[in-house]
């Protein structure tokens, strides 16, 4: 392994952590903007250091493990959540060269697998808390995440079929003429919805559902362990955005500007889109959420697979 | 230039298999028995992947997928049955309490 690669490996998680921290501030500011109110604006210029202040506060809060909780699992759960999200970044090709393992030939499967593991974080957190709200939140999260994982995988099939590879770099390469968002608009829609549900972001944040369940699966969490869940959520947003960029928006490709910048721009746009969704959409009922998944998205994504296959085959044989 | 030789894979698979088997035999909670069963099945799947790598043959991986599907179906059906048992009023998951089928005998 080369020296620069090692440096990249060490710096990447730190960078993502930082990014996610900053994102907490960005989100609040943007929400303020769109909802015609002020966001955090006291700490630093434009409230810029709000994130730093929050981080510092969290670090010095009491490291509390409730006596009724299952101690080992309770501590492990946020770490798992963090770990899976951070690991997923490993296979994202920021540019043709950058990225930790962007060439991995099963990159997409790796990400899907990591997302699958991510379910453990919420379930274990909800379970080990030994509290009713937490358990309900954990169960809701689990049901929602595993359901949407199915549709996410199915919606990606179109992309895989068109690119003929699981490697993210190959997928980007396959988009040199046309971004997949156009032929795969259906898949893109499903993937976006699934991505929101996977990160349990608003409007699909029913596992947390503060008006029903306190704070859902992390009701009993506080301090750094809560912070880790919190950060992991924002890292998840970044992950989904960068995935959308890679899979549907042509990745680093773009005219004039350097590839890194293109990638960053597209990802930032997607992140902003996530926040916009939060600002503008109401939350559905839980049964509506699940019905949407199983009764709409699943048939749609199956149809997408078939349609993509048919078109591909027709084009190949004509 | 294989990363792992077939024998290493086999060794690992055997260990996993034994762990699973021991689990099925020792655990009495039905959910744990199902999990142990899955461990056994995954061990066999590992054997197929290893053998497929040894012969550079894709059928091993196909078998892996089949086993995956089997494990999934078996788990699903198992969960369904456990659920039914639970719903019909058997409060425990302990496999030993299932004694409706001992066979009535003479004397």
């Amino acid at each position, binding site marked *: *392994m080369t020296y620069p690669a090692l440096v990249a*490996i060490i710096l*990447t*998680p*730190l960078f993502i*952590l930082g990014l996610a921290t900053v994102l907490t501030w960005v989100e609040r500011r943007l929400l303020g903007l769109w909802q015609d109110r002020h966001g955090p604006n006291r700490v630093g210029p434009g409230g810029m250091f709000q994130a730093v202040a929050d981080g510092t506060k969290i*670090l*010095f*809060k*009491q*490291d*509390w493990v*409730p006596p009724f909780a299952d101690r080992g699992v309770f501590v492990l759960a946020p*770490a798992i959540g*963090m770990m899976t999200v951070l*690991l997923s970044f*490993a296979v994202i090709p920021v540019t043709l060269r950058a990225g*930790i*393992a962007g060439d*991995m030939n099963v990159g997409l*499967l790796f990400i899907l697998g990591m997302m699958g593991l991510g379910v453990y974080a919420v379930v274990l957190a909800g379970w080990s*808390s030994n*509290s*009713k709200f937490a*358990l*309900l939140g954990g*169960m809701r999260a689990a*049901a929602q995440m*595993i*359901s949407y994982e*199915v549709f996410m*995988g*199915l919606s990606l*099939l179109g992309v895989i*079929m068109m690119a*003929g590879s*699981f490697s993210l770099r190959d997928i980007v390469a396959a988009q040199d003429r046309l971004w997949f968002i156009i032929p795969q608009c259906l898949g893109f829609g499903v993937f976006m919805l699934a991505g929101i549900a996977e990160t349990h972001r608003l409007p699909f944040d029913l596992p947390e559902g503060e008006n029903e369940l306190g704070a859902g699966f992390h009701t009993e969490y506080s301090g*750094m362990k809560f*912070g*880790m869940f919190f950060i992991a959520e924002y890292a998840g947003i970044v992950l989904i955005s960068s995935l959308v960029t890679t899979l549907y928006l042509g990745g680093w490709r773009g005219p004039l500007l350097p590839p890194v910048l293109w990638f960053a721009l597209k990802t930032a746009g997607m992140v902003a889109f996530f926040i916009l969704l939060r600002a503008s959409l109401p939350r559905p009922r839980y*049964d509506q959420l*699940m*019905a949407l998944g199983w009764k709409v998205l*699943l*048939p749609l994504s*199956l149809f997408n*697979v078939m349609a993509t*296959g048919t078109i*591909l*085959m027709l084009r*190949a044989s004509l | *230039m*294989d*990363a792992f030789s077939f024998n290493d894979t086999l060794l690992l698979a055997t260990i996993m298999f034994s762990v699973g088997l021991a689990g099925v035999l020792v655990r009495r909670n039905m959910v744990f028995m199902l999990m142990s069963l899955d461990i056994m099945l995954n061990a066999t799947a590992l054997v197929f992947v290893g053998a497929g790598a040894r012969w550079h043959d894709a059928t091993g991986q196909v078998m892996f*997928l089949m086993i*995956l599907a089997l494990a999934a*179906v078996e*788990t*699903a059906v198992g969960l*369904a049955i456990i659920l039914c048992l639970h719903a019909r009023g058997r409060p425990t998951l302990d496999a030993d309490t299932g004694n409706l089928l001992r066979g009535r005998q003479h004397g």
Partner: protein
Amino acid sequence: MENIPDIWAIFTYAVVIGILLACMLGLSAITGTRRSGSDMGRSMSLPFESGIVPTGSARLRLPVQYYMVAMFFVIFDVETAILMTWATVVRETGWVGYAAAFAFIVFLAVSLAYLWRAGALDWGPRVPMRPVAEMRKDQVS
């Protein structure tokens, strides 16, 4: 096996993340304030239930739908896995492969339709639609 370096890279990456997370948890454990003995109020030792003293076990019996979703996930996720093997080689397998995948998806769709009609995908009891007149009658009586 051209991705061996990738695997090592990911492995290293995982180790780095692990160290990082351990640092975060450890640091907060060191820096965080501590309470013990009588400082730990009674309310801190109780699960949070919006200010009400909790009763009963937290191990609830959950609605059956959660379990159903678990089963459907297990099934459909594996179907996805099987479809994925076809997805990378759509062009190579030609029309035969297409026919196989088509049959597979049709089977899948029929099973889904069956599940749908059987009510397995519904959450909560089905609320029967009642005519308005009947509801009025209820109110009158």
